């Protein structure tokens, strides 16, 4: 079985359902709009900041603030791409057409990942430039040290979030269960664990806490995180790999 055939098939699948369009559009709109809003608010706040906060002021990172909400739409995208097969019963039709389960899963992941990467990267650049426009004279420029890395990193971060969701959905199969775990986790639990001092030591190794480091250009003054932007991204990649391997092993083992 040629993998190219399966990839074409998965492309047909992903482009022929409405959920692809609305989840990705929502991710773009929310990330950009919220990023612009928070950038504008930060600019007016800057006057009232103390010296320490001004020193930690990171215009690049601020323009990505919308991602905390926008990533939820990408989670829905990643979950639906995989779990739709199960909730509709399509999985049996799909696996009868492609009995090589590894080829099936990784073709699906490849197509969805590429799509998330294109959308994520475009969103990241647009968010950056519009956010900087809001920040006016406080803005960073794309040529400043570390900024291009952060902007490209923002696109990669969005892609990795979608991939992680696909892996979790491949393990859990049910869309409601997957979303019920992932949404509160990334919206609330991870943020709490990563910021409360008691749990910070562990919380900072969670996928989104570690991965979002790549979007940071100015390191906060009192920052004691034990990894840099690339280290953080690597931690997130490990989470993604673990989720995908888990999904693959279970798909391989289970009855469809």
């Amino acid at each position, binding site marked *: *079985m*040629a993998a190219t*055939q*399966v990839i*074409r*098939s*998965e492309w*047909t*699948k992903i482009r*022929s*359902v*409405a*959920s692809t369009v609305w989840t990705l559009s929502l991710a773009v709109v929310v990330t950009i709009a919220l990023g612009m809003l928070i950038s504008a608010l930060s600019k007016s706040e800057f006057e009232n900041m103390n010296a320490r906060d001004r020193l930690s002021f990171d215009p690049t990172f601020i323009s990505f603030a919308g991602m905390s909400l926008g990533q939820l739409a990408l989670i829905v995208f990643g979950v639906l791409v995989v779990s*739709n*097969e199960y909730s*509709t*019963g*399509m*999985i*049996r*039709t*799909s*696996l*009868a*057409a*492609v*009995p*090589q389960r590894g080829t099936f899963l990784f073709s699906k992941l490849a197509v969805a990942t590429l799509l998330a990467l294109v959308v994520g990267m475009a969103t990241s650049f647009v968010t950056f430039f519009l956010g900087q426009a809001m920040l006016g004279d406080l803005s960073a420029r794309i040529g400043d040290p570390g900024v291009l890395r952060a902007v490209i990193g923002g696109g990669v971060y969005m892609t990795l979030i979608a991939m992680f969701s696909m892996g979790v959905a491949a393990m859990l199969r049910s869309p409601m269960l997957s979303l019920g775990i992932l949404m509160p986790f990334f919206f609330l639990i991870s943020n709490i664990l990563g910021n409360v001092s008691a749990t910070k030591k562990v919380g900072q190794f969670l996928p989104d806490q570690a991965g979002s480091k790549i979007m940071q250009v100015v390191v906060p003054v009192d920052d004691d995180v034990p990894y840099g932007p690339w280290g953080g991204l690597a931690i997130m990649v490990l989470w993604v790999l673990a989720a995908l391997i888990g999904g693959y092993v279970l798909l391989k083992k289970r*009855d*469809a």
Partner: protein
Amino acid sequence: MIELEGLTKRYGEKVAVNHLTFTVRPGIVTGFLGPNGAGKSTTMRMMLGLDRPTAGDVRIDGKHYDQLKDPLKYIGALLDAKAVHGGRSAFNHLLCLAQANGIPKSRVHEVLDTVGLTAVARKKAKGFSLGMGQRLGIAGALLGDPRILMFDEPVNGLDPEGIHWIRNLMKSLAAQGRTVFVSSHLMSEMALTADHIVVIGQGRLLADTSMPDFIARNSRSYVRIRTPQRERLLDVLYGAGITVVETGSGALEVDGGKSERIGELAAQHQIVLHELSPQQASLEEAFMQLTAESVEYHAHSDTPVQQWGETWRKG
């Protein structure tokens, strides 16, 4: 050709499919019969490599399912008409299956035409009626022009026209020399379409025989006679050594297929006959007898509703 050898599926303690061995041959329609919960669907899923057998083996043209290159070109299956993403159009559903197996787009149009869905090809599948969904599933099975076709309860929930269409389709596919394997829990349905039947109950093989053989062996055939000259006919038949049974309704019954002989005797003796008809006991009865011991979900009383009604009427 599909070959099963000692195929077994166990879910924990429960044995769903118990050491099944049989062969499904090309050129005929093979019916796969069993009461609900007998293990028909599980067996079919194992044939397609969807469920893994606990023991035993199933081969499609000598190969395991996952060894087939572009499997839809070997074997097409309708397992569950609802195994479709409702938000996808009929055309795109078939297109993604075709692409996965290197089948040209033109073939998608062809099968849509064959099943009569061309007009709704761009409509989302969730708006389809049960019959349309079944047709879409069959279009998917036909997509790769496979030599082997498999249908799980294809007539379930269809209207008479749809049932008629599926029967003819299966017969014509078999007439083209293809292997057609179709499951059902209705013996009467299979009697009309199948040339060969495999019967299972609680996962065990109960019968693997040709349909005419099964009919001959399992159903009593007799001749029913009505005549106004009852006593004369009884004498004549008695004289010819034919045993007659009188039934309550005034008809006479003679075991076996002796209608010609009886007709000739009646003519010879100028006896008027109002009815002379060969009869067969229903296959459904034979099937129920065969599977009686293995039926998993018995109704605890035979005909409780009827009894209630009759008692009331008598009272």
